[in-house]
C-alpha cells in the first residue's frame, strides 16, 4: 500500500443550516489518482473544496472534523500555504481574463515572490510542458489566456496550478465542459502527472474514473459509501448501493 497523503477524519460540512457532508473519513494515497464519484448533489464538490479549505470561502459555510496533510492538521496551518500545497482546478476553465498566457501561469509564482526573469521563464515553460500545452502556445505566449480553446484553457489552468509545485492537485469535473478529444488529452495528462503530484478528481463519467484512477470513492447523500481500488470498486463492490450506481441502475 502506498503512503497516505491526505486523510479526513469524521469530516462534516454545512452550508448555513444545511449539512452537505456527514462524517466522511477517507484516505488519499500518495502519488495516485483518487476518483470521487456519486450522483449529482451528493457532496463531491463540497468534499473536494474542504481539502484545500476552499469551502470556508462560501458565505455561511463551516466544517467540523479533521483533515490531515502529511499527518499535519490542515486547520492549524496557514490557509494560503495550504492552497499552495493543495492546488485546484475548477469545473469551468478559469484563466484570468486580461492576462496573457504567460502571466496566467506566472501568477502563482509571482505571488510566491519569484521576480527574476530567468526563474519565472523556467517555471512557466516547465509548467506549460507538464500540462502538455507548451507546443501549442509557444508561438503566442503573449496572447490573452481567454483566447485559447476550452480544452487549452483548462490545461492552462492546470499549468497555472502546477507552476507552484503543489503536492496535491484537486480537479472538479475538469472535463465536463470539453469535447472528447480535449477530454482525452486531459485524461492522459492526469495519468502522466501522478508521478509528481497526488490527484483527487471528481467525475460524473464512470468510464473516465476507470481510465484514470487508481482508487475510487463513492459518495451518496453526503456520506462516503465505499472506497477501494478502482478495479475492486467497479468489478466487485462490497455495497449494494455502489453496485447499483456503477452498473448504471441509478444516478
Amino acid at each position, binding site marked *: 500500500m502506498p503512503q497516505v497523503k491526505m486523510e479526513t477524519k469524521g469530516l462534516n460540512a454545512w452550508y448555513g443550516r444545511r449539512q452537505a457532508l456527514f462524517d466522511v473519513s477517507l484516505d488519499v494515497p500518495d502519488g495516485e489518482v483518487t476518483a470521487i464519484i456519486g450522483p449529482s448533489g451528493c457532496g463531491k464538490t463540497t468534499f473536494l473544496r474542504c481539502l484545500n479549505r476552499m469551502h470556508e470561502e462560501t458565505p455561511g459555510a463551516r466544517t467540523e472534523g479533521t483533515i490531515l496533510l502529511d499527518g499535519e492538521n490542515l486547520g492549524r496551518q496557514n490557509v494560503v500555504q495550504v492552497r499552495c500545497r493543495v492546488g485546484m482546478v475548477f469545473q469551468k476553465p478559469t484563466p484570468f*481574463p486580461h492576462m496573457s498566457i504567460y502571466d496566467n501561469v506566472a501568477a502563482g509564482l509571482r505571488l510566491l515572490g519569484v521576480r527574476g526573469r530567468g526563474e519565472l521563464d523556467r517555471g512557466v515553460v516547465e509548467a506549460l510542458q507538464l500540462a502538455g500545452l507548451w507546443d501549442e502556445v*509557444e508561438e503566442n505566449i*503573449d496572447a490573452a489566456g481567454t483566447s485559447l480553446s476550452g480544452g487549452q484553457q483548462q490545461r492552462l489552468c492546470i499549468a497555472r496550478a502546477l507552476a507552484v*509545485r503543489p503536492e496535491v492537485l484537486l480537479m472538479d469535473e475538469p472535463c465536463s465542459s470539453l469535447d472528447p478529444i480535449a477530454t482525452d488529452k486531459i485524461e492522459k*495528462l492526469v495519468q502522466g502527472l501522478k508521478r509528481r503530484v497526488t490527484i483527487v478528481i471528481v467525475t460524473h463519467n464512470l468510464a473516465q474514473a476507470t481510465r484514470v484512477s487508481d482508487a475510487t470513492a463513492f459518495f451518496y447523500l453526503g456520506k462516503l459509501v465505499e472506497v477501494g481500488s478502482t478495479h475492486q470498486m467497479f468489478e466487485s463492490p462490497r455495497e449494494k448501493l455502489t453496485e447499483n450506481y456503477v452498473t448504471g441502475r441509478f444516478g
Partner: protein
Amino acid sequence: MVPPSPPARSAAGAPAPGGEEGAAPSVRPSRWAVLTWLGRVFHGLTLAVTIGVVGLVAAFAYFLFAGAWQSIAYFGLGFLTSDTWDGVHNIYGAGPAIAGTLITSALALVIAVPIALGVAIFLSELAPAFLRRPLIYVVDLSAAVPSVVYGFWAYIVLVPLMRMSIEPALSSFAGGHSPIGQPGTGYDIFTATIVLAVMIIPTIAAISREALRAVPRIQREAALGLGATRWESTRLGVLRSARSGIAAAVILGLGRALGETIAVTMVIGNIYILPGTLFSAGSTLASWIVDNFTEATPGIQRSAVIELAVILLAITVAVNVIARLLLRRMAEREAGGSSTRRRLRTTHAHTGLASGTGTGPVDPAAPGVGNREAVASRFAARLRTRQAVQWTFVVVASLCVVAAIAPFASVLYTAAQYGGSEVIRPSFYTAVAPLGCNPAPGVTCQAGGIGPYLQGSLIMLGLAALISVPVGLLGGIYLSEYGRNRFGRAVSFLADVMTGVPTVILAVFVFALFLYFDHFAALSAISGGFALGVLMLPITIRSSEEAFRSVSPALRESALALGFPKHRVTVRIVLGSSRSAVVTGLLLAASRAAGDTATVLLCAGGSTLWFQGLNTPTGSIPVFIYDNFGSNYANLQAAAWGAALVLLAIMLAIGLGARLAVRSKYDPTQAV
C-alpha cells in the same frame, strides 16, 4: 358586407391582411379593424412622443447656442482665457470659471477615487454579511442627499473646521508656500473640493461596487485556489476584470463634480479671479452662472453667462466622449507584445527542456522554483510581508468606509440638531416664514414655518409630473417595445447623456425658451415646473424602459399566443407586471427633482408669499434653504434646517422604500 374576422391568432401589431384594410373604412369597421387601428395609433403615439423628446433635446442645444451667440461672436476665442468680468464696460471672459471648475473637479477626483474604491472593495469583497446590506443602503442614500443640503452642512460644519484648524495646519505644514498658500476664510477652492469629493464618493463607490459584484465568484476562487490572500485575489481576479466598470464610475463621478452647482456656490467664495492658491476664493462655471444669471442684463451680459453654460455643457459632453473612447480602447487592447516569446525561445534552448511530451523529464531536485523545498522556503520568507499587506488592505478599506459615511452621518446629525425641533411642530408645515429674529431677554421670536415653500414645491412637482410621467412612460414603452433599432438605441443613449447634464444648464435652457416664446413669465411656477419636468424626463424614460424590458419575454409571448394584440399586451401585461418598478423609477426621479435647487432658483425665483398664480415667481423648499442658509437670524437658520430635514426625510423615505420594493438595476440616484 362586414368582412369576416380574420383569425385573432396573429402576431399582434402586424398590419391586417389587405382585404379587411380596404373594406374597413367603407363599412362599419369590424372589431379586428378597430384593434389594428388602435394598435397603430398606440405605436404612432409612442413614436411621436419619443420624437418629441428628441426635438426637446435639439431645442435644448439650439437655445443654448442661440443665446450664447452674441457673446461668442463678439468675444471670440479670447473669451475662454480672459479673466475679466466687467459689467460696466461689458467685457467678459470665462478664464477664472473654467480654471475653478477644472481645479476643483480634478482635486475632488484625486481625493474621492481612492476612498470610493476602498468603499466599493470593502462592500463587495470584505464586508461581513450582516454589515453589507446596511452599508450599501447608507452609501446609496448618501448619493441621494440634495446638493443644497450638503452645501448647508458644509457652510455650518466644514467651513469653520477649515478656517480654524485644517487650513492653518496644512498651511504651516507647507510653510505657507504656493500652491497651498496662507490659510483663508474657509470659503475657498479647497473647501469646495472637499464638498465635491464628499458628494461624488457615494456615486463612484456605488457604481464601482456593481462592477466588482459583476465579476463571477469563480474568478476570486481561482486566485484563492492558487494560494492568494484576499487582497491578492482582489487584485488578480477582480480589479482587472472590473476596471472598465470602475473607469465608467470614475467618469460619472467626474461629470457630477464638473456640473455640481449649489453646494459649490455656497462655499467657494464666488469671486472672479484665477485662483492663486488652494486657499483662495474662486468660482466655477456652474457657481458663476447661478450667481449671475438672474441679475444679468439682457444683451451681451446675459449672452456671456449663457456662453458659460455652453462651455460647461461642452466639457461635460467631452468628458463622456473621452470616457467612451477610453473604454473601447481598453476592451480592444490585446495582451502584451512579442518580447516574452523571443525571450522564452532562448530560455527553452538553454535549459534544454524536452518539449511536447507533456510529462517531460523535469528533475524534481533541480534548483529554482521547480524544487519543492525552494518553494517552501520562499513561501516562509514572503508570508509575513504578504500578510502585512493583507491586513493593511483590510484596515485601509475599513477606514475608507468610515471616511465615506462620516459626512453623511454628520449631515443627518447636524440637520436633526438644528432642525429637529422645527419639524415636529405642525405649524411648521402651514405657517409662513418667520421674521428674522434672535432670541434675547425680553424678545420672543416668532416660530413660523415653510408653508408657502412646501406649497410651491408641491405645485411645481405636480407640473413636472404632468409632463414627465406620461411622456416618460410612452417614451419608455416605445424604446422597450418598438424601438429595438438604431433610432431607439440612439434615443436611449441620448437620455443617458441627458441625465448627466448639469441641472443648471437645463435651467438656463428653460429660461431662454420661456423668454423666447414670451407667453409665460420665465420666472414663474410654470417655468420652474417645466424645468423640473425636463430634469425628470430622461430618468423616467430610461427607468421605465428598463422596467418594461425586464418583463419576461415568455409572459409577453404567452399573451400574444392567446391572441392579444401587441398594444394590449403592452398595456395589460407589460405595464401591469412592471408596475412597481415603474413607480419606483418615477418616485426616484421625483425625489431628485424635489431636492434640486438650480432649476427652481433660476426658473421660478423665490417668493415668501402663498401661491399667487402659475405665472408668478414661486418659492420652493430648496430655494428657502438657499435663501436662508447664511442668515444671521437664529430662527430663520433653524427653519432652513427644518426644511433640509424635510428634504432628507423625503429622500430617505423614497430611497429606502424603493430599494425595499425592488432592487432596480437602473438606479437614477446613482447617475449624476
